[in-house]
């Protein structure tokens, strides 16, 4: 039987609303916002997904990010400049590595399957969704936690403002987390039928400004602004609606379109 991949939970979280649960307080005391957002959003999504009896190795983690823990990267650079050679803060350095968040998620949420961090400027969440889907289809795992996180940085904000002559940045630091399931043996909707992504070379400034980016499809609405996480917030809001309402029963297609490419997500119910 051909395997199917379902989405059983979808969570969205803004950095402004981030509250670290008490049971993670100690473990996350040295963590940056990038790590905290990943852990807390993933934890919430898992709590909202139907309980399943799975071995820790049957769940994987897939993180998509455009800019990674950029602020920590700069703090690490600052530590090198200020503290001198060989004195860079080990904590800052290890947290500036892009997959540090995946390591925290696996440790704190007891996930022993694959942990993949993917970096691209266009639609990193969709890239992560696709890899998670393929990992489930290949039967290496039965469940995937798919996360997108952006926290940006003061340096990037300044560059963006100067680039575009703006006084404020429209970015909203935050995270989304979805739970994907091998749907052969459980009944959850909707199903991720197909994902296609085509990226097109473009001016670097366009990737920050997201000018011309738009999306269309069932339950996908505008109103999330124009920033690198907006599409992920729109997809998550729509997916949460589809999961909770269970009203749409026909195949649906979501299309993301921008000067830097196209992404297509096909859903069946």
């Amino acid at each position, binding site marked *: 039987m051909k395997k199917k991949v379902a989405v059983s939970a979808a969570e969205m979280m803004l950095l402004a609303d981030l509250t670290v649960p008490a049971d993670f307080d100690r473990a996350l005391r040295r963590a940056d916002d990038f790590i905290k957002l990943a852990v807390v959003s993933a934890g919430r999504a898992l709590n909202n997904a139907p309980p399943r009896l799975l071995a820790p190795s049957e769940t994987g983690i897939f993180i998509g990010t455009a800019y*990674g823990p950029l602020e920590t990267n700069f703090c690490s650079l600052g530590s090198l*400049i200020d503290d001198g*050679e060989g004195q860079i803060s080990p904590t800052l350095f290890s947290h500036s590595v892009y997959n540090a968040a995946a390591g925290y998620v*696996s440790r704190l949420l007891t996930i022993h399957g694959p942990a993949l961090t993917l970096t691209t400027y266009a639609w990193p969440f969709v890239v992560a969704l696709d890899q998670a889907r393929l990992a489930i289809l290949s039967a290496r795992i039965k469940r995937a936690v798919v996360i997108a996180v952006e926290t940006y940085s003061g340096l990037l904000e300044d560059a963006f403002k100067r680039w575009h002559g703006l006084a404020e940045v429209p970015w909203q630091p935050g995270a989304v987390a979805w739970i994907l399931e091998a749907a052969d043996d459980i009944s959850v909707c909707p199903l991720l039928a197909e994902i296609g992504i085509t990226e097109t070379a473009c001016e670097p400034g366009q990737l920050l400004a997201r000018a011309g980016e738009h999306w269309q499809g069932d339950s996908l609405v505008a109103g999330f602004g124009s920033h690198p996480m907006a599409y992920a917030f729109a997809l998550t809001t729509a997916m949460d609606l589809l999961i909770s309402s269970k009203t749409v029963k026909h195949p649906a297609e979501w299309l993301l379109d921008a000067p830097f490419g196209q992404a297509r997500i096909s859903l069946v119910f």
Partner: protein
Amino acid sequence: MRQDSRSERVGTRERVAVTGLGSISAAGKDVPELLASLAARRVRSGPVPPWLFTTALKYPVFAGPREVVTSTARFLLDQAAPHFLPETVSRTVLLALSATAEGLAQAGVDLALLRSCRVGIAFGTTVGCTFHNEEYYNAWRHGLQPDLQPVRYFLGANLAAALHAILGTRGPAAVVTNACASGTDAIGLARDWLNSGQCDIAIAGGADELSRVAYNGFVSLMLADTAPCRPFSDDRQGLNLGEGSGVIILESAALLSRRKHHCLGWVRGYGAASDAWHPTAPHPEGRGLKDALAIALADADIEASAISFVNAHGTGTKANDLAETTALKDFLPEHLCPPVVSTKGITGHTLGAAGGIEAVLTLMALRAGIIPGTVGCHNPDPGFPIRPLPEPEQQSLNGRIGISQSLAFGGGNAVLVLEAAL
């Protein structure tokens, strides 16, 4: 279902063929030079060259050639992007480009064929995706408004996007940032693309340049050695950083059958798993590695007894080498333990590139049927539960299937099962 060596299938999947290999590192500007360095146990480490960055620290590195655009890469550039200016992209992109050009040339894939196919590009990196321009950062944090060019440079440094743009190709693209396991994961990911029909051909591997931040970071973590690294040795003191790129060209069985090009081997299996243990240290018993090995072998549809060679991560740090040998002891057949070797003694630890370079070396060793011992290791640590092959020895291989494994910060573990063609 077991697979006949002549069959086109592994279990229910078609086999993914390897038709080209490319590499550039301190051990050589191409695969033949890399193999010659391994055979000669040649160690080209030394102080950080001042044209890379200046430092007062005395930890040796394995620097690649100063000029990283090889003649093969120039030939490809002349055809694909005659107006391309190498100074507009990072050294990491250029390393990846050179390894890619070599791989494509060996695969007999010209630009016309490449542009007529759906091409997947998957690269692992760590340094290659970061913003490490100290001058810009320092000026900015002191309230100045430096020229924005370094930000443009950072935004143009995505390896997969940059290579698609240079080659003029279309298809899936991903940059895996899984620290030291990135290159291995990227090859596994590209294999999945081919299995799922998302592309016809894939360029996969890893690339990373030496950086002052990473160099200082490993020193701060007390993981670097002031002498040439000695993986698996009883007197090992840590790793030496290196730089480079390793690339394999993967093809669907359908495309290879149409082209009738020579097949070097196959990516038979891929597995990845997490330690869920510590931000920078591996699980002491290699828990995640054992899981990754089990998944990879199940994916390849083989038993552990079919493995004839293990290309270990073998960084030369106390913790890594012990965790790795402990995991392998539990996993490999006790009386038929295949040779376990680290090749970082000739390349250094190239971080995101390591998985790519080591996949190239693994496949070439399997094709040659012989593997030299671990360069830098004269007395394997007697505390290890298995004995890795030391430098003075070499061993003939009993089969054509081997594994290449990587461990990473954050507790990631990734394993490839590779098979050489006759």
